[in-house]
């Protein structure tokens, strides 16, 4: 698992992030998240708030965003809860970045189904572009992380980049996606096989074929 210790608490960090505050639109979203919970249970909104804070940090730094300690303290203060409790949450879920990341956070699934379907090749592709696990590439564009199962085993191998999933990958298809992202375009998300919509079998159904056009009662055939 990736090292999830928070970025060191340095004077530079304090100087850069000490004055962090939600901007208007994020404050509105944060207050909406808090309002979902009954009076006295505002702490329940800690996860959406951490996510919002991370996104705002991302906008300010033109990256996916991360959670510097002063920002975590700000969230704790916002919800009036002990900062250690917020830090517990932030360090528990790997969706919160504890260290600065690149503009695109490339999370390659390396769990068994993806591995069997060729995730090793995806790592190779990423490495060729100068990415290394847990580090921001020199151009500031990429951060590579190996993650555990993301629940897309039917369309393995897959990669999650920021908020989007890219599935049914080969090294070439991943290359094309990364090229497009680097050029500032938004590639097609989801499966990368032409003609396939989601996780249905390639080349049409292989079982329950009679169900394709209409509801078919198989019970008599058992």
């Amino acid at each position, binding site marked *: 698992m990736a090292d999830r*210790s928070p970025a060191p608490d340095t004077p530079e960090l304090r100087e850069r992030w000490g004055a962090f505050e939600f901007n208007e639109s994020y404050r509105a979203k944060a207050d909406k998240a808090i309002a979902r919970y009954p009076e006295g249970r505002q702490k329940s909104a800690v996860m959406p708030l951490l996510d919002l804070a991370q996104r705002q940090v991302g906008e300010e730094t033109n990256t996916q965003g991360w959670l510097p*300690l002063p920002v975590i303290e700000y969230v704790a203060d916002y919800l009036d809860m*002990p900062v*250690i*409790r917020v830090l*517990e949450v932030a*360090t528990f879920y790997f969706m919160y970045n504890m260290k600065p990341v690149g503009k695109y956070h490339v999370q390659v699934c390396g769990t068994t189904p993806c591995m069997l379907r060729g995730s090793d090749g995806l790592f190779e592709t990423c490495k060729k572009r100068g990415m290394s696990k847990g580090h921001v590439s020199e151009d500031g564009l990429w951060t590579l992380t190996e993650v555990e199962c993301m629940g897309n085993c039917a369309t393995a191998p897959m990669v999650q980049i920021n908020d989007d999933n890219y599935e049914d990958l080969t090294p070439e298809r991943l290359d094309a996606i990364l090229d497009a992202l680097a050029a500032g375009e938004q590639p097609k998300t989801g499966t990368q096989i032409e003609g396939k919509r989601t996780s249905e079998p390639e080349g049409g159904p292989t079982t329950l074929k009679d169900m394709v056009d209409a509801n078919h009662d198989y019970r008599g055939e058992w």
Partner: protein
Amino acid sequence: MPKVTVDGQEIEVPDGATVLQACELAGKEIPRFCYHERLSIAGNCRMCLVEVKPGPPKPQASCALPATEGQEIRTDSQMVKTAREGVMEFLLINHPLDCPICDQGGECDLQDQSITYGRGATRYEENKRAVTEKYMGPLIKTVMTRCIHCTRCVRFSEEIAGVDEIGALYRGEDMQITTYLEQAAEHELSANVIDLCPVGALTSRPYAFEARPWELKKTLSIDVSDAVGSNIRLDSRGREVMRALPRINDDVNEEWISDKARYQVDGLTKRRLDKVFMRKRGKLQPASWDEAFKAIAKAKPGKSIAAVAGDMVDCETMFAAKALLKACGSSLIEGRQTGMDYDVSNLAAVNFNSTFAGIEQADAILIVGSHVRWEAPLVNVRIRKAVKRGAKVFVVGPYWETTYPAEFLGEELGVLNKLPDAVAEAFKNAGKPAIILGGAALKGAHGKALALAHEFGAAFNVLHFSAARMGGLMLGFAQKGGMKDIAAAKPKVVLSLGADEMDFEPFADAIKVYIGHHGDKGAHAADIILPAASYAEKDGTYVNTEGRVQFAEKAVFAPGDAREDWTILRALADALGVNVGFDSFAELQAAMIAEVPALGEEGLADYGALPKADAKAKAEGTISAYPIKDFYLTNPIARASEVMQRCSAELLHGGDLAEAAE
């Protein structure tokens, strides 16, 4: 009242009991690490697995399973035995086998339970996890590799102490217990996590590598660092007290003690008075007992002798002094060294009448002039419990950091004369309101607080912070005008019984005899120093602020020439040619109990009913500050203790030091 069967034995358990509690009621031992009677249930160590029918066909964590009617519980089946062995094997996978160099060795839950419930050998061949050490302040030493993630420490600081600062970061195998940014744990009860820790992850830093539990002599004692009278156990080796640990007493300290009670004991060997000293040509010089007694006798005090009791003396010492003065024909005895002169004609009016256990039930609490967190940390714990049950707390006095929501009503005592509507409302609607009056408010608000208590039917409590106070008052160590009366009498000889906070200025012409154990303020001002015993070095009776009489035993001998206080006073009686009427400690105690029978019986003393309140009483004055300026340095033992000095410097003045460095 569900009926359950434990190992074939049918028992009835209280409503809301867990399966674990049911098993304990049936006399079965259930191994556990995370479960603790006084903390919330976590259910994460899995050591308490038992077999329960009806239910899924697998072992169940008994600590988190409610006992229900007709359950069949087995703690002795093969399934349970295998389950315990399995859990223990997993716990030991990442636990280092460093028992020989671990301070918990010999009193370690994991060690004991692995012997009883473990497999005897491991099948694990991979590398073990290692965790970096975490700084938790000057009192707690951490070896986090040993941590088994029971989270007792996390729950203690959150639930009992009310200072949320320990947490579990990361997840799974990487989970680590730490404070935010490894800051020191900064509250008065922090060291209790050492007792709670079932393994050697959190151990005592000052006591590190000092002794093994089986080498220590255990003596039952009473803490004198505040007026709570916490029940403690002094562990000593040879002539040295190695450590103080809490004893369980649900009425007093539950099973916690303050950091000061626990760690001031290293002060017992430092700055000790172990010789007789006399002031010759302005300088204190070593002398003999004979010389000292002769010098006092030469002053021919006659009736002109006074005694001032310090904050930590036992009742026997005070009674011996009182008897000596009585034999001389004097009654100039006083215990409130700082000059307070509240009315003590009715002791119920200066007692904590709710009792500590009772204050938990209060639903509206008005604290007047007391920094409860520093003056009695364990009472603060009780108030926090009351607040968790829904009590409202109001405080009159300068702001201090409460560990529960509280409303501060300002520093003016005058606010009591016309209570804000919110307070009056809360008190009117409360079923069990209580008023707590601290030392800082006794002067200006005593009468008014009594009147308020009468008006609202509230329990009236005075929170003292000197261990000797209630005992002293019971023995009559109080003049009408306090210390002023003593000074006005211009005694020729003043006996200071470990009184360090008193003002020696008015007694410039008197011979000041300091009978105490530490070279502190009192010894500096004294003309003659007679070395005496500290609380660990003598048997004695103490009365806490709720009027609870408790008996402490002698753990070690006093160093050097120091003697138990009563023997010094007895010898002084001979030197002055008077008869005090006792020659042994037993005789002294018998005489004391004959005079104040309540002191002979352990438990709450009965002070009768509260005096009639004067409805016209007015509160006046301002509380500008609380008497305790530095929690860690309130008494001569703590001031001599290096650990307490370090705590004071690091935890209370750490910010100042850092600022000065910048």
